């Protein structure tokens, strides 16, 4: 070692380090090396497919000619596309809202159960989320079947007329939302339960002494304390729900009359079933700016709250 105790002295005695040695010693170089595997995965599985999809969406049907934004222009003039856009937004917003509300309610119910009995309820309530969606959707499809619908049979018991679950487009949309909520609500429940458990009990006690009613405790303590988890869960679910494919595919296959398609199922129909891959790619890419906008606002809120509170 050198007189000043630095490692640099060793290198000097053995001769000046070459540029490769200097590069390897830098902290930033080590950081780059350590993150390389992740970068490779992101580039290979996210960036490349995304850019390739953008490239594809600018080709003609036979993928032999560059047509610029023609596919997008055709879609924007298509009535079906606007219906799909409406249905996707309606489906995603309604389903996420319902999942968030039901998940919040379930989390509160579970939180109030003593720890001893909580585990079995938690396990049971997570079952819909654990079953592969294609399988459980098939189960729902049978329950919605016009000939032997068990749901209609139950409704008949309380004298409610038969519902054409998958035969009428509005009922079909509601059915899709119901199934998505059934599958997705447990995810919200478990996230909110974790968030509820992390709120210090003394904050509730302080609020109770300050004069807060049960609703005011929810409004002024629980919700602000859970704001970040709520935002991130909603964003995550919005992305997944917006890109949902399997429920629509199994339950209605886009019908009746293509009125229940969402972006993903419509992109599959146009791109794979109808053989127009560039147009299918263009359909799927319409999700990107919408979700990017949501992500920007949600994450900005999360960062702001983190700076203030953590």
């Amino acid at each position, binding site marked *: 070692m050198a007189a000043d105790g630095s490692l640099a002295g060793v290198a000097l005695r053995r001769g000046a380090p070459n540029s490769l040695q200097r590069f390897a010693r830098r902290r930033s170089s080590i950081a780059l090396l350590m993150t390389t595997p992740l970068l490779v995965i992101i580039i290979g599985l996210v960036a490349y497919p995304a850019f390739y999809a953008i490239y594809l969406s600018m080709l003609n049907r036979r993928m032999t000619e560059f047509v610029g934004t023609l596919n997008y222009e055709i879609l924007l003039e298509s009535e079906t596309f606007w219906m799909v856009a409406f249905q996707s937004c309606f489906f995603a917003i309604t389903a996420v809202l319902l999942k968030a509300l039901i998940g919040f309610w379930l989390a509160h119910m579970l939180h109030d159960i003593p720890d001893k009995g909580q585990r079995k309820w938690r396990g049971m309530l997570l079952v819909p989320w654990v079953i592969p969606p294609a399988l459980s959707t098939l189960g729902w499809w049978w329950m919605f079947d016009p000939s032997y619908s068990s749901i209609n049979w139950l409704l008949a018991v309380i004298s409610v007329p038969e519902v054409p679950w998958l035969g009428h487009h509005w009922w079909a949309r509601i059915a899709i939302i119901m199934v998505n909520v059934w599958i997705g609500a447990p995810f919200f429940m478990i996230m909110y339960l974790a968030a509820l458990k992390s709120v210090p009990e003394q904050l509730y006690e*302080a609020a109770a002494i300050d*004069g807060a009613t049960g609703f005011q405790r929810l409004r002024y303590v629980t919700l602000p304390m859970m704001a970040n988890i709520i935002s991130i869960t909603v964003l995550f679910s919005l992305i997944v729900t917006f890109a949902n494919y399997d429920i629509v595919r199994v339950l209605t296959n886009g019908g009746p009359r293509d009125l229940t398609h969402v972006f993903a199922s419509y992109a599959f129909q146009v791109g794979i079933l109808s053989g127009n891959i560039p147009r299918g790619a263009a359909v799927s890419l319409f999700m990107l700016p919408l979700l990017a906008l949501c992500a920007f606002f949600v994450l900005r809120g999360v960062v702001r709250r983190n700076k*203030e509170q953590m």
Partner: protein
Amino acid sequence: MAEVSLRKIVKAYEGDVQAVKGIDLEIADHEFCVLVGPSGCGKSTTLRMIAGLEEITSGEISIGGTVVNDIPPRDRDIAMVFQNYALYPHMSVYDNMAFGLLLRKFPKAEIDRRVKEAARILDITVLLDRKPKALSGGQRQRVAMGRAIVRDPKVFLFDEPLSNLDAKLRVQMRTEIKKVHQTVKTTTVYVTHDQVEAMTLADRVVVMNHGIIEQVGPPQELYHRPATRFVAGFIGSPAMNFIPARLENGAAALNLVLADGSVLPVPEDRTARYKPHAGRAVLLGLRPEHLTEPREGRGTYADIAIQPEVIEPMGMETLVHFHMGEARDLCARIDPTLSASPGAPLRLTADMAHMHLLDPESGRVV
């Protein structure tokens, strides 16, 4: 402002575990009452029952003459300062302090006046716009106190408020709390496990152990006239020394005979009090400051020869740790100018005028 009254208060948990075993306590209006005791003695549970955060198994609590057993915390007109401050992290200091008044629908101008006045008293005016995250431990503690002060409640409840602060800040905040009480004079119930906090802050100290009240009294009374071995050992630092002895009738007065045969005279004015216990095994209680270097003058002194095990120079005094037969962990306070070293014989004097005599079976001071 109000008096607090606890009558036969019991708190039992599942499996018949009793945290509080039927305590009675009267806290006067304007009084600063400190509940002190070791962990698990029931002091925090008692405070939480006064706050309404714990249900009472049996008994009656009244605040200002009104029985509050079935009244929720928000309607008891109390304010509480928690150990970890319990500040709302998403609210500014101002909003934290104003929250209780806002929920009680006070006019905005009145809220503003009260918050600014409390901030002035606690010297936190410059912090009003900050979030709790941007405050130090001591500042957070002041905000928590400010939140209590603005409400102008009947009773302040403090649950170990200084436990999370470092030693220096704890001393500083202790003084602040005393100053605030001298200014606002609200009836205060303060829970701590630190007997120094209890002694310095309280008008009256309540010593609790195993869910019962061992003794209630002003700090000086507890220190000089403890009722039980627990109180004698808990109050005072270093703790009181307990030395097994036998009380014997001497020629003129009573004597205490220690295990090593040394004889310590009992002051004459105590003879009548201790006479019924003559011939029995007893415990001699002596505080470290009454076990010192040899002294001249009037009084009942007895010399003891010891071999110090550990010497602790404290600057203004020196603590000498030693043992005598079965009596271990004994401590004496000697003049710091005297030379004492571990293992070297040392002569001490026991000031018998300040002795305590305890019944080893009942644990009560005779």
